[in-house]
């Protein structure tokens, strides 16, 4: 069959118009400039935090005791070599001129290097808590929404009950009692962090499970597990993703607050929150304000970016949503 030029053109246009949903979402996300910028910034920050220490002249705990609390951009010719932690390999040779780009802290440690190590801990906690919490929330939410009845009542009463506990005070008490390591802290935060995700998922499932494709898969003999996790969850995931990205920022601030009060990540592990704790005294704020400025700035930038990314994701995943 001969196709004339006009018809061919029409076909081509049609082909251009059709795009896979994923590509479309990415395109919509990229149109949100702030979100895209935030995404790039966060990626750079993560790269810097995880790769940066390898290129730094300093190690996490190397101290230059005669240069405590130096201001940013102080130059210094090393009198002693800086060695790797736990061995005698020389990292930076004696006589090298080094620059403390963000200054040093009360023990003469390089603030920038320490900030990167602390960032690993803070970002690790934020991502781990959010991912585990949302995962748990999705699983509980989908089970309780799909089966309903007693399971649903039990799950939702648990959510209600957890929500009647004052979060920050109870976290403070729990961390006082258990003195948790970083991983245990993550578990504690997850324990209180899954409720929002579960509620959101359950709400989605309640409306989805009445639709025809669920009856169709039931008629085809699909198991409950298959219906829940192959058919229902992928269709209900969009709000959860948005929620997770906004949750990242909350977890980050919560962890920082706990560590700032001295109850979260314990020394010698550095996190952005407990770096601020060291800098929270009036003397430091008066004389060496940069020590309080940079760790907080890092938290602020990350949480701002996560919020923007969440906003962008909401626009991209659900263009009709009003907010």
């Amino acid at each position, binding site marked *: 069959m001969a196709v004339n030029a006009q018809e061919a053109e029409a076909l081509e246009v049609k082909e251009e118009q059709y795009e896979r949903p994923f590509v479309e979402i990415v395109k919509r996300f990229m149109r949100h400039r702030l979100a895209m910028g935030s995404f790039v910034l966060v990626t750079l920050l993560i790269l810097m935090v995880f790769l940066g220490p390898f290129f730094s002249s300093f190690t996490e705990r190397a101290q230059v005791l005669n240069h405590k609390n130096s201001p940013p951009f102080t130059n210094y010719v090393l009198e002693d070599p800086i060695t790797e932690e736990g061995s005698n390999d020389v990292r930076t040779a004696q006589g090298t001129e080094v620059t403390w780009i963000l200054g040093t802290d009360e023990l003469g440690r390089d603030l920038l290097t320490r900030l990167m190590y602390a960032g690993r801990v803070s970002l690790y906690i934020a991502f781990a808590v959010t991912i585990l919490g949302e995962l748990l929330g999705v699983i509980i939410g989908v089970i309780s929404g799909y089966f309903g009845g007693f399971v649903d009542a039990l799950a939702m009463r648990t959510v209600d009950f957890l929500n009647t506990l004052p979060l920050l005070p109870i976290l403070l008490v729990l961390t006082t009692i258990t003195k948790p390591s970083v991983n245990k802290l993550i578990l504690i935060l997850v324990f209180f962090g899954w409720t929002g995700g579960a509620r959101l998922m359950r709400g989605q499932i309640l409306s989805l499970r009445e639709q025809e494709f669920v009856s169709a898969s039931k008629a085809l003999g699909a198991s409950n597990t298959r219906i829940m996790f192959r058919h229902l969850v992928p269709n209900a995931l969009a709000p959860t993703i948005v929620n997770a990205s906004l949750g990242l920022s909350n977890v980050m601030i919560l962890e920082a607050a706990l560590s700032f009060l001295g109850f979260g990540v314990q020394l010698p592990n550095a996190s952005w929150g407990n770096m601020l704790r060291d800098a929270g005294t009036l003397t430091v704020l008066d004389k060496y304000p940069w020590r309080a*400025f940079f760790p907080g700035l890092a938290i602020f930038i990350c949480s701002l970016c996560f919020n923007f990314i969440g906003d962008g994701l909401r626009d991209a995943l659900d263009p009709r949503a009003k907010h």
Partner: protein
Amino acid sequence: MTVYLIRRFFQIIIVLLLSSALIYTLFSVAPGGPLDELLQVSDPKTRPSQADIDRQKKLLGLDKPWYLWYPVWLTGDTWLDKIGLDQYVGERRGVLRGDWGQSWKVQRNKPVLDLIKDRLPATLWLTISSTLLSLIIGIPLGIFSAVRQYSFFDYFFTAFSFIGISIPAFWFGLLIISVSLMARNRGWFYFPPGDILAIRDYEIPLLGPVTAGSLLDRIMHLVMPVTVLALLNLAGWSRFMRASMLEVLNQDYVRTARAKGVRERLVVYKHAFRNALIPLITIVVFAIPGVFSGAILTETVFNYKGLGFLFISALGQSDYPLAMAFLLITSVLLVLATLLADILYTFVDPRIRLT
């Protein structure tokens, strides 16, 4: 409504029993406390005898079997002879009858409730003024940016609210302390950082001398903590107000009012504003317990010796009765605020029926 209230009342009692049991369990499995300290003394001269330890145990209620701990803590042990447990009768009156125990460390042997009563006014000053401030600033901001949607101001406000949501409040507190200290060092106008009241009279440039302990002194010390605490809610509330106002402005009755030729000012302030305020009321009520949590951070940053500061020092020194009292009070507040918010829903929006 009455049926609903009665049902909610019973629900609340169950929730409070559960959460207080949870809190009690948490603290009773916690390590530390006076008994551990007594047992750890190794100096033979000061080591307590078995009789001393037993007496302490009786004082702490640990001589009783475990299933009586929580009931005794809740209702006291003066009534135990009535159910045939004569050997456990004691002097305790229990939490429900106002016996919240005594402080272990922070102020030894002072009743916990007295300690809390002493610190409450300072925290109320802080929380009430910051809540008012965020309402007074937040509501007009939200309305203004809704009325001028997509204007420059609206974009500016959106950016501002993103910053307000993302900024860690305690860091913001540290920043303004640092700025204030810088101003003081240069002889400019500044706000005194830390404490509730000054010990000595001081002088502030441009303002003149301030008498220690006067109202002016209190206000000067309040300005920075209140700003920080207000910021916690300001962004969220004004954003909420904007969304609610936008929704109301699209309603039919607003269009009708405009069609009738009512002046725009009147439409905004009389027709739209009142209706847009409704959802905000519940949000604000619900946020009140959160203000107490926020006070923990703010009071620590500013060395402001209120309830939150007391809680942190109690936790730091393992003074569990005191910490437990704070936790109980905040959780009761949270439960009551939830109920209040639910009830207010029906009052402000008759379309909602609670059954």
